[in-house]
């Protein structure tokens, strides 16, 4: 998780949306707590939405399945 954090910070600094989508999705899978997982999934989803990335659909579906997205 420590490496993931560092990579996320680097991706934020670089404005690398592709990496942000991937890293936040990885973070969501790396935690056991549902709220924490949905927090990361939300970030992955928002960056995917912004980028018009195909991942947005699946990320939305996961959030919706947990009652976290409309």
């Amino acid at each position, binding site marked *: 998780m420590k490496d993931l954090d560092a990579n996320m910070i680097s991706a934020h600094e670089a404005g690398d949306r592709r990496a942000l989508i991937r890293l936040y999705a990885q973070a969501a899978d790396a935690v056991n707590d*549902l709220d924490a997982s949905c927090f990361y999934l939300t970030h992955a989803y928002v960056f995917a939405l912004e980028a018009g990335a195909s991942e*947005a659909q699946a990320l939305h579906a996961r959030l919706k399945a947990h009652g976290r997205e409309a």
Partner: protein
Amino acid sequence: MTQPLTDLGRVRASVEQANGLPNAHYIDPAVYEEEKHALLFGQWAGLAVAADVPEPGDAKPLEFLGMPLLLIRDKDGDVRVFQNICRHRGMILVEEPRKIEGAIRCPYHSWCYSTKGALVSTPHVGGPGHNTHESIRRDELGLNEVRSHIWRDIVWINVSGDAAPFDEAMSDLIARWSEFDLPLYHGGHDSRFELEVQTNWKLAIENYCESYHLPWVHPGLNSYSKLEDHYHIEKPGEYSGQGTMVYRQLTNENGEKFPDFEDVGAKWNEQAEYIAAYPNVLLGVHRDHAFAIILEPKGPERTVEHIHLYYAVPRSDEGLRMRNTQLWKTVFEEDIFVVEGMQKGRHATHFDGGRFSPVMDSPTHCFHDWVAGKVEAHRAMKQAAE
């Protein structure tokens, strides 16, 4: 009863008797603010050109009379104008012209909007990882859209939202130029320029719509386009301008010309018209090219003129285009000392607004009459609301 800011009684008299608008209409911030609502927000005003956002997803932030706006071509290709602010905390959404790949994400808390303005994501709005809340109804919180209409590639906006539909409000001008209702193509980067002028925007209109000044300010035109070759154009309450009967096409060293707008009709072989579409758009049409000048008021005494040239074909000759741009730039630059000089003149106390030549100045008087009528109507409405 509130005293009106200015007395417009003399302005609406006949051209033989009328005075021009009082000084305050050019220098007083309170009148500028009044006119902002009466003349610009309440009408169909020119904001930009659709060519500014050629591809779906292209977005360009703009300011119109201090209001932050976002010009965008949505995913389906329709040009729209939104207030450039998030419905959450009023944060500016887009700072620089750019392509929106997917959604418009607010840089503050990341609320996201589609290119059609729909609110599509509200991250953590119900707490961390909870992206919905019953009190935040997305369908009620889309971007505030400004009423807009495209005509002759110009993006016209009606900020107040209560003007007559564009086709109705501009029906006479649309009909007058129905022969030019043909595809027109922006000439690209070499066919746009801006002039920043220390003048009230109305003086640019007033100068544009009369031909009286041409032989004095544009002596280069005398050789082929004399004063007597011009005629007035006046549609009270809507537009005014001038036309010429001796338009001569530009040629290059090989004698080549721009291709004509197809089927525009023989009437326009040597005729061209220059019309101020009230409030703030100056238009010109010729058999082979057209132009638009959008006047952006930046304050009582400052205006930016955004000039765009258009052609009948998508890829016209670059050399000719550059010559044409330079030709018009020279003409419009020749007008700068006049509008700036008249602006300085408005600081002379006791100036009565001036008098008009009943023969030569009627298109300018037509504009003043429109201004006075709209301002008086605005004042009457405000008075009634008090």
